[in-house]
């Protein structure tokens, strides 16, 4: 009886050892494959992320150019005869100045087109010899704040531009989008 138990135990041990010995190649191969594929996939995703970041940088530069173009267009409209009357006041007062400033072109100051891009005025705040301008691009909702300096020829843009949070132009003025 004891011998019988001993023999069966030895057989079980041998078969278990044999199973363990035959099973190590496939898990090793699978493990190696997983490491290889995961490693290369993660490096590829890093490379894609780098390219995306480079593209975003380029687009940001181009958006800044568009915003500065819009500000330049505003400055050109602001230099037209009669506009000084409005520009001495903040944009929130303009609606009530129609009678005092009959020669001023309110529409030209509030919105316009520069190249293929439509822009809209968000705010205008004069402050002595300087003024603060906020414009938004209708197509993208990108907005920026710029400083201008009063000259005898009108308002000149100063260096620098502060990007503002994107504006939902459709919500603020649906008529403008429809144009």
């Amino acid at each position, binding site marked *: 009886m004891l011998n019988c138990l001993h023999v069966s135990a030895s057989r079980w041990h041998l078969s278990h050892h044999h199973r363990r*010995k*035959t*099973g*190590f*190649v*496939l898990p*090793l*191969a*699978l493990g*190696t*494959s*997983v490491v*290889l*594929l995961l*490693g*290369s*996939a993660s*490096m*590829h995703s*890093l*490379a*894609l992320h*780098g*390219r995306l*970041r*480079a*593209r975003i*940088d*380029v687009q940001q*530069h*181009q958006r800044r*150019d*568009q915003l*500065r*173009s819009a*500000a*330049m*267009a*505003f*400055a*050109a409209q*602001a*230099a037209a005869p009669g506009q000084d009357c409005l520009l001495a006041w903040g944009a929130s007062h303009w609606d009530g100045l129609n009678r005092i400033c009959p020669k001023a072109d309110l529409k030209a100051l509030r919105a316009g087109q*520069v*190249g293929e891009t439509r822009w809209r005025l968000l705010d205008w705040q004069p402050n002595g010899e300087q003024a603060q301008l906020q414009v938004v691009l209708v197509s993208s909702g990108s907005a920026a704040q710029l400083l*201008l*300096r009063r*000259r*005898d*020829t*009108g*308002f*000149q*843009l100063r*260096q620098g531009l502060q990007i503002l949070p994107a504006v939902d132009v459709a919500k603020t003025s649906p008529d403008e989008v429809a144009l």
Partner: protein
Amino acid sequence: MTLAEVLVAGVIVSSSCCASLQVWSQTVQTTQAARDLVQTGELLELQWMLSRRWLAAVEVRCPVDSFALEVDLDEALPLEAGISRRLVMDHSLEGVWLTLEHNATGLLRRQLFTAAGSGWCRSSRETES
């Protein structure tokens, strides 16, 4: 360890090696493209800043002559190879469009400079008055 097991393991490892190599080759291409884009962007940005500063500092008389301005700009700031620059008149807003383009990639920078926004025409006004 049986022959079948070794064969299956070999197929798995070789397939994953092949796939991994392809992904690595794409990774190298993507990294190179990103590096090229960054370098081109930096090169264009440098030329852009120089051109903008020149335009901000120059005395321009009105009416603005974009051709004369472009000749002066090219003399003052010769461009690096592979980049083209144009100054095109915008009559409706009395200004010029400055365009810088990287010829190989088509990367573009473009901005309007109006006489009023750039502080040009001061000398002409003074002369008139």
